C-alpha cells in the first residue's frame, strides 16, 4: 500500500516537472507577442502622440500583459525619481528587476537593452526606425519561439510522465 502511494507520488511529481518545463515553452511566444504589442504602442505614443517617455511607459505598461507591463511600469517609476537616471539606465534596471519573472531569454533582453540606448534621445523619425528594427528583430525571435513550442512543449509533458513511469517500473 505504502509502495503504491510512493509510486503515485513519483509519477505525479515527475509529470509536474515535465509540465512546468513545457509551460515555459508555451509562455515565451505569448510574452514575446505582448512585448511586440508594447513596442508598437510605444511607437504610436512616441511618433504620433509625442508623449514624454515616462508617460508613454506608464500607458504601455498598463495596457499589456502583466509580466511585460511590469518592466515598463518599473522603468517609468525609475525615470520619475528625481531624474537622476537616464532613460537607458532606467530601462536596463527594470529589465534586471523584472526580467527573471518573464519567460524572456537573453536574446530578447538584448534587443530591449539596445533599444534603450536610443530611446528618447533623437527625433521622431529616428525613434521610429529604431523601434521598427526592434520589432522586426523580435518577430524573428517569436517565430523561433513558436517552432520551439511546437517541438518541445508536448515532448516535455510526455517525457515527464514517461520518466516518472520508468522510475516506478524500476522501483517495483
Amino acid at each position, binding site marked *: 500500500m505504502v509502495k503504491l502511494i510512493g509510486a503515485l507520488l513519483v509519477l505525479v511529481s515527475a509529470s509536474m516537472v515535465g509540465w512546468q518545463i513545457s509551460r515555459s515553452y508555451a509562455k515565451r511566444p505569448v510574452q514575446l507577442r505582448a512585448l511586440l504589442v508594447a513596442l508598437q504602442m510605444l511607437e504610436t505614443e512616441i511618433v504620433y502622440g509625442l508623449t514624454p517617455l*515616462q508617460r508613454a511607459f506608464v500607458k504601455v505598461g498598463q495596457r499589456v500583459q502583466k509580466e511585460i507591463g511590469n518592466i515598463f511600469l518599473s522603468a517609468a517609476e525609475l525615470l520619475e525619481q528625481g531624474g537622476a537616471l537616464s532613460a537607458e539606465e532606467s530601462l536596463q534596471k527594470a529589465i534586471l528587476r523584472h526580467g527573471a519573472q518573464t519567460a524572456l531569454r537573453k536574446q530578447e533582453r538584448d534587443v530591449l537593452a539596445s533599444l534603450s540606448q536610443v530611446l528618447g534621445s533623437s527625433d521622431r523619425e529616428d525613434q521610429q526606425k529604431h523601434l521598427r528594427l526592434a520589432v522586426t528583430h523580435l518577430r524573428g525571435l517569436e517565430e523561433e519561439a513558436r517552432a520551439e513550442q511546437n517541438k518541445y512543449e508536448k515532448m516535455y509533458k510526455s517525457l515527464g510522465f514517461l520518466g516518472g513511469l520508468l522510475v516506478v517500473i524500476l522501483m517495483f
Partner: protein
Amino acid sequence: MMDKVDKEGSSMQEIMAILPASVRSIMTTLPSAVLEVLEEIRLRQNQPLEIRYGQQTSYVTPAGQITANARQGWIFTQEHVVKLLNQVSQHSLYALEEELKRGYITVVGGHRIGIAGKVVLERGEVKGIRDVTSFNVRIAREKKGVAQKVMPYLFEKGNLQNTLVISPPMCGKTTLLRDIARQVSYGSEWSSSRKVGIVDERSELAGCLQGVPQRDVGPRTDVLDACPKAIGMMMLIRSMSPDALIVDEIGRPEDGDAVWEAIHAGVAVICSAHGSDVGEVARRPMLGKLIHHGAFTRYIVLSRARGVGTIQGIYDSSLNPVRKEQPAWSS
C-alpha cells in the same frame, strides 16, 4: 511682500529642478543676493559657467564663487550637456521637434531656454538643432503690479485704448504686457473686468505648459499658446470674442494686417515692439504704416534708465503726453 518672496523662491526652485545635479549644487552655493537678481545662466560646452545678474555678468568657480577670470570658472562638459537635455526634454527629445526648430524650449514656470548647436536642414529649411552645445537659461520673473502705474493712462472715457509698448530687449516689456493682461482680466478701478485673449507665440506671456498658463494672467483670459501671431489674433476674434487682445513683439507684415483687422473688429489691441522710441519704431515698414494711420492711441516707452521696467513716457496718437484717466467710479 511675503507673496513676492515666495514667488521668487519658487521660480528659482523651478530652475534648479531642470539643472543637472552637478550644476545645481554649484548654483545653490551662490550668495542669495546674486540668486535673487539672477537673470540668465549661460552654459556652453567646454566653457566656464557664466551667469548674468543685475546689470553684470560673471563666471562661477567650482566652489560657487563669483569670478571675472574665465580660467577659474567651472567647466560645462559634454556629459553635462546630455544630462541637461535629458532633464529639459524629460528624456523625450522627439517631443521637442518644434521647439528645436525655433531654437528655444519653454519649461515649467514659463522659463525659457535658448539653444544653439549644429542646425540640421531639410530642403533648405531648418529642421532642428542636433548636437546642442549652448544653453541660455532665462529666468522668467513674474512681477505682479508693474502695470499699476500705466493702467490709468490706458483708458479714455472708460474705453481701453489700442496700445503699443515700445522697449529695447530686456527692459520688462513682456512682464508689463502680462500684468496689463492680468489687470484687465481681473478688472481694476478704471474698468470692470474684461475678456482678454492672448496670442502667445513664444510661450512667454502666459508661460503655458500643456496649454495651461503657469503665470497669473487673470480669470477671464484665453491663451492661444505657441500660435503664430497673425493667425492667432484672427482665430481668437472669431472663436473667443475677446474685449482685449494682447500680443508680444509684432513685426512681420502679416502681424500688421491682423492688428489692423482686430482694431476694426472693435477689439482693443495691446501689443509690443522692439525699439527705443516712437520715432525709431515708426521707421519700420509695417509698424510705421500702423502708426501713421493712427492705429494706436497710446504708446508706452520703456527703458532701463532707472532699472528694468522704467517707464520713459506714455503718449497718445499725436505723441503728446497723456493725462491720467480718473477712476471709473468718480466720473
